[in-house]
């Protein structure tokens, strides 16, 4: 099967989406943000001048505009670039887009996609390193997507644009150079289907976004030492495929959750709470969460590494649940 880099698969999806449906407009033109590959997006921009538009620095305004356009027939994909900037648009996303279908009694749809790059990008410091997906999961009415591989980013982006709901597409710039198989003619990946990224019988590691790749590395290393780690990637938080997670746990009966949102009220907290509601008696050890520490993200590299869900913290957690 052909192999692509993550950024290539993402661009391919964007071009195919633009070609397939002229209701799709791209609002904000830096889907590759500051990555060295960013110039490659220009091709799409030039090919669809009338459907790629670069707005003012007015996140609240252009996110609201996208929601309104989605309510009236378009399928806008908004690029917020750095995930932290979604906070500028918070009222339009959590209080307009998320509520529109419900408040109208199911009569108004807002098929908009908000694309953002979350997490620790490297020296982003406290104001440019956010992972807003936990807050967004606490806001009913939004679909939340977290790709972690070239195949997933392509298949999930296509589905994101096709659903009739507001969707937050939470990407991570550290994934862009990851290579992996992507079939030429690949179907969109339906939401609510977790993916077992690696099979193993000793411990279940539930990981999201860039943390999936980090956990796969760790699993590789522990594999050598004879520890069989199963890496489960939910791929979408809303909707959540809990069945796949539970059946993996049935097998391993030991769980570590690795996610980049801050620890308190983070994604790992929700997954842990749900797992324990369902399989309390089945577990051989308390669930361990490896999340970003409850600290604003510091600028200096060694500090940044210290607060993030690093390989060493992941390994320590896995070993502790195996004891």
């Amino acid at each position, binding site marked *: 099967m052909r192999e692509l880099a993550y950024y290539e698969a993402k661009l391919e999806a964007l071009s195919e989406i633009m070609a397939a449906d002229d209701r799709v407009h791209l609002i904000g033109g830096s889907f590759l943000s500051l990555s060295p590959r960013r110039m490659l997006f220009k091709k799409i921009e030039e090919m669809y001048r009338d459907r790629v538009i670069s707005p003012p620095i007015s996140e609240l305004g252009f996110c*609201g*505009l996208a929601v309104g356009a989605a*309510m009236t027939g378009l399928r806008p994909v908004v690029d917020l670039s750095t995930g932290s900037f979604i906070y500028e648009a918070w009222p339009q996303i959590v209080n307009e887009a998320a509520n529109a*279908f419900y408040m109208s*009694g199911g009569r108004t749809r807002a098929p908009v996609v908000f694309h953002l790059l979350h997490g620790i990008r490297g020296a982003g410091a406290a104001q440019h390193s956010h992972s807003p997906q936990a807050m967004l999961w606490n806001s009913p009415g939004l679909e939340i997507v977290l790709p972690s591989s070239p195949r997933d980013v392509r298949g999930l982006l296509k589905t994101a644009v096709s659903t009739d709901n507001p969707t937050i597409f939470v990407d991570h710039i550290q994934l862009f150079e990851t290579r992996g198989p992507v079939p030429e003619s690949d179907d969109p990946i339906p939401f609510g289907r977790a993916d077992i990224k690696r099979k193993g019988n000793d411990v279940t590691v539930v990981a999201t976004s860039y943390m999936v790749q980090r956990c796969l590395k760790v699993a590789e290393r522990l594999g050598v030492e004879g520890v069989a780690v199963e890496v489960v990637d939910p791929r979408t938080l809303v909707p959540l495929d809990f069945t796949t997670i539970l059946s993996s746990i049935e097998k391993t009966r030991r769980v570590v959750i690795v996610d980049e949102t801050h620890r308190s009220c983070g994604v790992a907290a929700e997954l842990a709470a749900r797992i324990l509601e369902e399989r309390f008696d089945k577990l051989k050890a308390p669930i361990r969460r490896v999340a970003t520490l409850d600290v604003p993200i510091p600028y200096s590299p060694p500090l940044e590494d210290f607060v993030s869900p690093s390989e060493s913290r992941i390994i320590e957690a896995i070993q502790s649940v195996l004891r």
Partner: protein
Amino acid sequence: MLPKLPRETLLDFCRRMLLIRRFEEALVGLHDAGHFSGHYHVYIGQEATGVAGLSCLESGDYLFTTHRNHGHLLARGADPRRLLAEILGRRDGYNKGKGGTFHVAAPELGFVHTSGIVGGIIPLAAGAAYAAKAQDSRRIAVCLFGDGALEEGAAAEAFNIASLWKLPVLFLCENNGKYGAGRSVGAAPSLTMAVHPLIDLPRAYKISAQQIDGIDSGAVHQAIFDAVATIRQGDGPRFIEAQTVRWPGSETNWPVVPAPTEVAMAWEVGSVPTAARDWYRISDPLLLFIRDLVEARQTTREEISELDRNVRGIIDDAARFALSSPFPEPETALEDIFA
């Protein structure tokens, strides 16, 4: 001044304004009788904008409105029975009781989304205009909001984008003079808005803007008719500030009816408590319209009274309908989260 329109149309305007007035007066009664409990706002005093203004739209146009939406919906032909049922949280409401007074949506009438967040709809309306333009449709978007919404940064951001991208949107600011929801009196220049006149703000963004007397149905109709024409033509956004005097019953956090409107007050407001008398005599767009109609021999006092009886009947029927509509099944709360 009366709109230069055929008699039938003028009488239809009169009927719609009366319908709004009677609906809102009845609503206050239903609230005070405990048939619904939440915070709510009525449209009394702004009927000219809703009726004469929105009559200039085509059926395909989009409307975005606020916490003060009842009059806009009725002006566009909403069914008073379903509107009232929604406000009472009943199953037969426009939104199955999920939206309520702040959030009545009726896409078939153009009301895509109604927000209780001040300023919330301004970017949304720009978005609908963006979609209309992208689809080369002749639709335009109308954004109805209060003067207070101009204090939100969302308004400035949306004005900028609408102007830059020449979006077919009418920003229709209903300045009811004094602020709502228990805020300090906004004498002009207001205590909460440094921009004065308000049209200086859209103008800074190169949006052509105009101030009109929102009590005068004729002035409202003419200004909005012209604005809609230029917008539909592709000349970009327009801003209109329709100035009205706040209805005394809306000065408190919860509406109170100082005196139920009598069409006869168009000639003699004697019965009205002095506090509110001036408003009904000189600031009420409905009574002013009736007075003009009669003086212009377009109708008679009798015809008006007949019309009023008629409208009261519709409202009584709507109330019966809404009150007898069942509450939704609790489990339906779990429906309509995702399409």
